[in-house]
């Protein structure tokens, strides 16, 4: 399957980091050498069998991969339509898909001879996964987190501290994920010669969107093989939530050339379609530049990044990975959004029917899956990326539901 320029959809990005017209590198000159060094080291590592061997060893013995493919029987019965299968990234060590990327990038950090790591985090899952990888390798680590997210994801803040990371609360701007990325970038501007920035999603300047996608692709590679093994066929539909879009990129990418497989990304619809009420740039935004790449973004007419809202800290972001913009505009994937309240209903349906507590981020994908499954026949198979578990959200959910402690 090709884009309008004749490039096969899986053969991106090009050497300039372009996914079609999206991606690229829009950063201060100071960071260029480190980005070039990262590109070069990643290219070498990919061709080095010992790198892949070490990463695969960590995936199996430290993370617990492969993650299971689970049939959500009662949820399927509740919907009365397509079969719902869950790719259980929530069962990974640290409770989400984020660890797939942080271990890969920690190995790259060591190969580049850098002795410190920084990261940003929204929900705290990437922060915990980075702190975990750094504790594993003995690398000092600082994590930037918006002050609003420090409040709503406090269990993860404490976990990061236990793991030895310094957690820096960011008080600027909207005090969420976007501001945490700004602060991490500013730190990197001064520390770039000795520090690696482990970015947590398929966003940022080239080569980050490619590297993070590749490390997360283990999700889709495993899931595709598990589907073929179980049914001798591919799923009809793959669904994942999209904030920056790393779990979605990870599960979608290995299916991109399978034209018959429908790919659906679910953004945070928040409180509604007005600007500032949602975090759904693919659904409601326009082409623009944010955090080093060209992609869909929520921006005003002056090019200032708009405020966004989501009940889920991990989706509360005004941009999205450039490869998702590429898949959207080429028609390979479709993107929709899910309201805060519907995500909460999705959360409750999965808890009650399956005994699985999903993250609020993941609950967006679950809610949309319930809606879509009900419209499809029982012959069809929907594969959902259950990207993370919801323990971190328990206190916030209690607050939102108004339950007593």
């Amino acid at each position: 399957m090709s884009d309008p320029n004749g490039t096969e959809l899986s053969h991106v990005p090009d050497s300039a980091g372009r996914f079609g017209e999206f991606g690229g590198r829009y950063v201060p000159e100071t960071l260029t050498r480190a980005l070039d060094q990262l590109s070069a080291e990643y290219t070498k590592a990919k061709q080095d069998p010992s790198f892949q061997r070490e990463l695969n060893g960590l995936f199996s013995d430290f993370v617990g991969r492969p993650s299971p493919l689970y049939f959500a029987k009662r949820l399927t019965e509740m919907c009365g339509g397509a079969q719902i299968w869950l790719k259980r990234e929530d069962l990974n060590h640290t409770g989400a898909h984020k660890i797939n990327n942080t271990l890969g990038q920690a190995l790259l950090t060591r190969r580049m001879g850098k002795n410190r790591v920084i990261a940003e985090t929204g929900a705290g899952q990437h922060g915990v996964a980075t702190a975990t990888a750094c504790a594993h390798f003995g690398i000092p680590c600082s994590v930037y987190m918006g002050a609003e997210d420090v409040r709503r994801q406090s269990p993860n803040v404490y976990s990061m501290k236990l793991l030895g990371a310094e957690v820096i609360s960011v008080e600027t701007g909207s005090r969420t994920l976007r501001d945490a990325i700004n602060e991490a970038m500013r730190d990197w501007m001064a520390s770039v010669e000795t520090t690696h920035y482990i970015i947590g999603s398929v966003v940022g300047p080239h080569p980050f969107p490619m590297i993070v996608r590749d490390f997360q692709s283990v999700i889709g590679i495993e899931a595709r093989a598990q589907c073929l093994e179980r049914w001798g066929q591919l799923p009809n539909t793959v669904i994942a939530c999209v904030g920056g879009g790393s779990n979605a990129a990870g599960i979608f990418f290995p299916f991109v050339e399978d034209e018959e497989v429908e790919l659906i990304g679910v953004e945070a619809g928040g409180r509604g379609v007005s600007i500032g009420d949602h975090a759904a740039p693919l659904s409601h935004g326009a082409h623009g530049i944010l955090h080093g790449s060209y992609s869909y973004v929520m921006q005003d007419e002056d090019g200032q990044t708009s405020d966004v809202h989501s009940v889920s800290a991990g989706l509360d972001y005004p941009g999205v990975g450039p490869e998702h913009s590429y898949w959207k505009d080429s028609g390979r994937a479709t993107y929709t959004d899910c309201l805060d309240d519907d995500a909460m209903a999705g959360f409750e349906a999965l808890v009650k029917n399956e005994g699985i507590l999903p993250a609020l981020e993941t609950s967006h994908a679950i809610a949309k899956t319930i809606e879509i499954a009900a419209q499809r026949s029982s012959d069809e198979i929907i594969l959902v990326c259950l990207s993370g578990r919801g323990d971190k959200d328990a206190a916030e959910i209690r607050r939102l539901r108004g339950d007593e402690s």
Partner: protein
Amino acid sequence: MSDVDRLFADLKAKQQKALMPFLTAGDPNISFTARAMSRLEEVGCHLFEVGFPYSDPIADGPIIQASYTRLLDRGLKQADIWQLLKNTQSMNSPRVGMCSYAIIHRRGLREFTDMANGHGVAGLIVPDLLVEESGPLRAECQARDISLIPLITPTTPPDRARRIADAATGFIYYVSITGITGERTQLPPELTENVSWLKEQTPLPICIGFGISQPEHVRLLAPVADGLIVGSAFVRRVAEAADIAKEETVLAELEKFAKGLLAELSSTSG
């Protein structure tokens, strides 16, 4: 030839070095920025860098970032900045815009450079536009005699520095430190050597910025640079002018600070 080229040719003939204050556009309001520019021109500043506030600046330190946030929260629009540039169009000193590519791209490269040209903007500094991505904007700037001024940093490898210099117009903005903008007490020891090397690679003037805030810095750098850019040290003083009663005091303070730097600049360049 842009107004930036003419200014540096003129200064070279007179064996003078340039002082270029950075001011955030509209901080704390449009009329104050215009008055500050005019007063600083009167005491001898040579050209001005006018910063377009941006919601997500990555190269800027806390002082300049805070000025951006303050103004955007107060509802400053791009139209207000064009008004400022219109109001200061009769000044003799060239005005250079410092603007994120996110803003320029959103407006459209052609429309943005048309606006810049129409308001007499002599050059653009686009801190998040690398030489690899700069072709389209460079073409639009060239067509309108607007200098497109690139940044070269201590982390830029030599061959890349040459490539950036070859594509540059106006002058080269040499970033003194590896980091973000903001006043520093000490500048890196290898700075003068790096700038001297760069001078041999390009016929363009080289202005040094980031961290410069004290007369001692001027004494150190004036011999190697063609100009010095001072940002946070001005913006920090301007922040006091949020209180209207203090506007006059702040203007006097800005003048005094600039005079101190200019005195050092002329005695050192001599």
